[in-house]
């Protein structure tokens, strides 16, 4: 049986991991390669590296980093953050990334999804969708969740799928950071609407939340950051827990 996936997300700035990475067993907790390797050893199924570097000059650091990740890590990984053009994708894939994720640029210029999937195949194009309930519908947000777009999330996911996105990374901003659990209903609805895999993100606080998002939320994968970085949940224990609840996991 195809297993559900657990995906730790690492925020990277100027080639270094940021945001409360707190591991005693790492020589250099700021090194994304070392942290990623540790997660891979513990049973992470994939890794996502999100580059939050502001300046274009410092983006060269990213391609060097991606090369190092590919050299050292033997599980699939996605690189996101600031990817805008077909050439940006080419650079990342040539450096060894398995997939890239796009977000704001896809909303600004949806045909870029077609261009990327045509050139490199749907399997490497992940479309990240940040969304918030506005009282009437789930609305798509861009620019790291700062800008509402007026677009309905349930329409948008169908559109990005038809344009060739191979996977969706769905983040509920209402749940992100709360540790109260993932957006179960939204994820279930999106998962039933599209035929590509859906990665749920935002809200993980307990091991039970992961079981819920796979069983009730029908997610194919679940992504989380701080609970792994702060040692609140150990990936090996998490996978054991999920398995004991009859969810297929590696």
């Amino acid at each position, binding site marked *: 049986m195809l297993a559900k996936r657990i995906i730790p997300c690492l925020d990277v700035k100027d080639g270094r991991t940021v945001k409360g990475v707190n591991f005693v067993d790492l020589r250099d907790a700021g090194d994304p390669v070392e942290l990623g390797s540790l997660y891979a050893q513990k049973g992470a199924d994939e890794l996502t590296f999100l580059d939050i570097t502001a300046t274009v000059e410092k983006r060269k650091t990213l391609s060097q980093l991606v090369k190092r990740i590919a050299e050292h890590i033997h*599980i699939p990984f996605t690189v996101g953050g600031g990817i805008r053009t077909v050439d940006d994708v080419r650079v990342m894939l040539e450096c060894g990334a398995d997939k890239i994720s796009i977000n704001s640029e896809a909303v600004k210029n949806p045909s870029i999804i077609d261009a990327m999937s045509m050139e490199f195949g749907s*399997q490497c194009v992940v479309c990240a969708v940040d969304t918030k309930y506005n009282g009437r519908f789930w609305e798509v947000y861009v620019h790291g969740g700062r800008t509402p777009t007026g677009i309905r999330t349930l329409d948008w996911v169908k559109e990005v799928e038809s344009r060739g996105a191979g996977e969706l990374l769905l983040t509920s901003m209402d749940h992100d950071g709360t540790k109260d659990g993932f957006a179960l209903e939204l994820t279930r609805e999106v998962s039933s609407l599209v035929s590509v895999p859906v990665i749920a993100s935002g809200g993980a606080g307990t091991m039970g939340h992961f079981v819920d998002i796979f069983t009730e939320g029908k997610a*194919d994968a679940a992504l989380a950051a701080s609970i792994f970085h702060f040692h609140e949940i150990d990936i090996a224990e998490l996978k054991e827990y999920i398995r004991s609840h009859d969810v297929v996991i590696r």
Partner: protein
Amino acid sequence: MNQQVAIVKYNAGNIWSMSCALKRLGVDYIVTDDPKELSSAQKVIFPGVGEASTAMRYLRERGLDEVLRDLKQPFLGVCLGLQLMCSHSEEHDTTCLGIFDEPVRRFPVGLKVPHMGWNTLFDLKSDLFTGITSESYVYFVHSYYAAAGPDSIALCDYMLPFSAALQKDNFFGVQFHPEKSGAIGEQILKNFLALESDTKSEADHV
């Protein structure tokens, strides 16, 4: 392991990932489309990510289809590489290399396609899987599959049982990505690299 591995250079290879995997294993490798270099390497790896008809056209235009079919050393096709080693693919109705007789079909409508993620192997029967137990997880990303058949040396189940790996003589193909399959994938690559290479004896016969 002091041996030379050739990675086939063509328009659909995910060469960097495979190169990195070999680097991690400390293996000496070259990336080449030169028939002489391919024939003299001790092992040949044929990676692949892309679309079947474009890849086959590229190989034919350069005569690489003949070269690959004639190789005598252990040869490993990965993902699209495996599919191209079959006789025919439903992906744009493409005639492939014809090493394996199993047809390549698109997954039926049902579960999500591509089949993406970690899935288990069963019915393992080859030296390629020495030390690997049934139900081991490996990483797959594909929308087309080679049917189960006489050349199958490992199966996987996604809507239906399909060939996770095929073998005929010196030709091996795996649908999953050993270079992305953690420790299990690494072991499978090591097993492939440990296979006896009889390029020399073949050369002597000639």
